[in-house]
């Protein structure tokens, strides 16, 4: 008994060591930052970075809203940053403290939710699109209309995600991912019900495995996932439909009650440095709108459509926004799609 108590005490004292160094508390997605870059930051700022993880934007919001505090930097997606800003949960960004802010691509910024980086700084960007097997679909065209092809029936999948699937159909019909117009939504509903006849299932994770093993020939996929798949299987390719697609961006934001502001700004600035942003990009396979870092990247990496979409497509694409009470419209359409035969 005494031994156990002693061991527990020892563990406790171990976990609280290093008190002399300052600590920076980060709330992030797992595996979303190169550990070597974090270690480099710890050395340069002489501090300890403590990482914590959440698994969805909604969980992050619920937890902070209920009053949890103690974090210095968060990484919500842009629709969630906007919501948190509206509710006064995050701070305005003080541009004078981030000298590397100039690295951010201003042309890209003009398309985003927080165009002036008032409360958020972009970290990584990903898109949804279509991943497919080049050897099995020789006449592939980059369009959402691929889901209409009945010759591929049973070998293709769509996301199991209300906003992404209805959004793709909205784009296919020439509307925005964030529409609240009921007629447009109805049209999209008819389109998805048409597509549903051809798809094997609505799925996100199993579909990746299915594409890599040959069970499926074409799947609705996120760019980062597609790149990882292509890394392993050279028969696979990724395309962004010409009609446009959805863009998801994760931001650096600083919560209202952050205790270590100095260190938080130092951290963000450090991650915006060209070399570090490059290392992070290579680690997570996503595109970062950091001009200085992009200059250092491999040409091959950048020319890949799964990493850098063309400007025309970017302009046609939408950031998913929080719908608030209008979410119900989407839920209703989604229910009808799911129950249709």
């Amino acid at each position, binding site marked *: 008994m005494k031994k*156990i108590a002693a061991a*527990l005490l020892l*563990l*406790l004292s*171990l*976990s609280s060591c290093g008190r002399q160094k300052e*600590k920076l*508390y980060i*709330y992030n*997605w*797992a*595996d*979303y930052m190169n*550990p070597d870059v974090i270690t480099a930051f710890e050395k340069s700022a002489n501090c300890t970075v*403590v*990482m*914590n*993880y*959440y*698994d969805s934007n909604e*969980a992050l919001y*619920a*937890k902070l809203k*209920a*009053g*949890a*505090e*103690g*974090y210095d930097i968060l990484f919500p997606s842009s629709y969630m940053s906007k919501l948190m800003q509206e509710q006064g949960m995050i701070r305005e960004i003080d541009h004078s403290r981030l000298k590397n802010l100039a690295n951010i691509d201003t042309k890209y910024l003009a398309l985003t939710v927080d165009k002036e980086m008032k409360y958020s700084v972009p970290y990584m960007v990903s898109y949804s699109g279509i991943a497919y097997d080049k050897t099995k679909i020789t006449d592939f065209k980059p369009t959402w209309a691929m889901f209409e092809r009945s010759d591929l029936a049973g070998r293709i999948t769509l996301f199991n995600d209300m906003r992404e699937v209805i959004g793709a159909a909205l784009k296919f019909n020439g509307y925005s991912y964030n529409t609240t117009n009921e007629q447009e939504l109805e049209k999209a509903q008819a389109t998805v019900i048409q597509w549903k006849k051809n798809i094997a299932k609505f799925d996100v*994770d199993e579909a*990746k*495995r*299915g*594409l*890599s*093993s*040959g*069970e499926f020939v074409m799947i609705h996929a996120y760019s*980062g996932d597609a790149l*990882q*798949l292509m890394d*392993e299987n050279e028969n696979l390719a990724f395309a962004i439909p010409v009609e446009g697609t959805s863009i998801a961006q994760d931001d650096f934001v600083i919560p209202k009650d952050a205790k270590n502001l100095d260190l938080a700004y130092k951290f963000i600035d450090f991650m915006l440095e060209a070399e570090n942003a490059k290392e992070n990009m290579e680690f*997570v396979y996503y595109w970062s709108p950091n001009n200085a870092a992009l200059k250092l990247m491999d040409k091959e990496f950048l020319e890949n459509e799964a990493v850098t979409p063309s400007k025309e497509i970017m302009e046609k694409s939408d950031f998913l926004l929080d719908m608030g009470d209008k979410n119900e419209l989407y839920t209703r359409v989604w229910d009808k799609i799911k129950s249709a035969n």
Partner: protein
Amino acid sequence: MYATAAVLFFFYLPIIIVIGQSFNSSRFGGSWKGFTLNWYVKLFTDRNIWHALTNTLLIAASSTLLAVILGTLAAWVLYKYKSRIQVAHNVIIYLPLVLPDILMGISLLLFFVALKVTLGLFTIFIAHVTFSLSYVAMVVYGRFQDFDYSILEAARDLGATWNQAVRKVLIPYLLPGIAAGGLLAFTLSLDDFVITFFVSGPDSTTLPLYIYSMMRHGSPAVINALSVILVLFTFIVVISSKKLGEGKK
């Protein structure tokens, strides 16, 4: 016989697949891409995983210890005293068993925030004791159902002090229940996600929290490798505890 084998096979097949996949060099595990120990190397060099694992074990061990003590006491009181207060007590003990985790997580979080308790390992510890206490109490209480109180009285008649009677008669009788309750509490604490998510603070990530978040960007293959090690660990614990039990006989 064959039916048993089939059922066992069915139960263990997923674990066997996980073990196989942990050596598969494909990061998605769709098809076999060759043998690799890469995921194990990644696992052992990832300081975040080890930090999370330390937190998890620390909380599981400490919360089990306290839950076993409090749970056994609660069971004893429920058995010994029958009054209206005990009926209420019974309901209160029962409640966490049926309460949805999310409700408990959010309400504990609101409670801690209202009391201005800093979220961290301590709040996770309290939360885990809260729910595992009920499981221990119920299992030990079950053991009490067949308990004949007169053997305690007999011990006292034969000259044992109250302390001796408890130590030499009551505790040994309850031990299987206490052990089972303790194991249950330990496993529940080890893999709890929902409640832990809400009451965890900065610097108190546990393994389940880490694994759930890894699903989005991380490599499932590292999780496979981790699972294999956990399974191995469990087998070692079960086999050695069985060996110990045999030794005593």
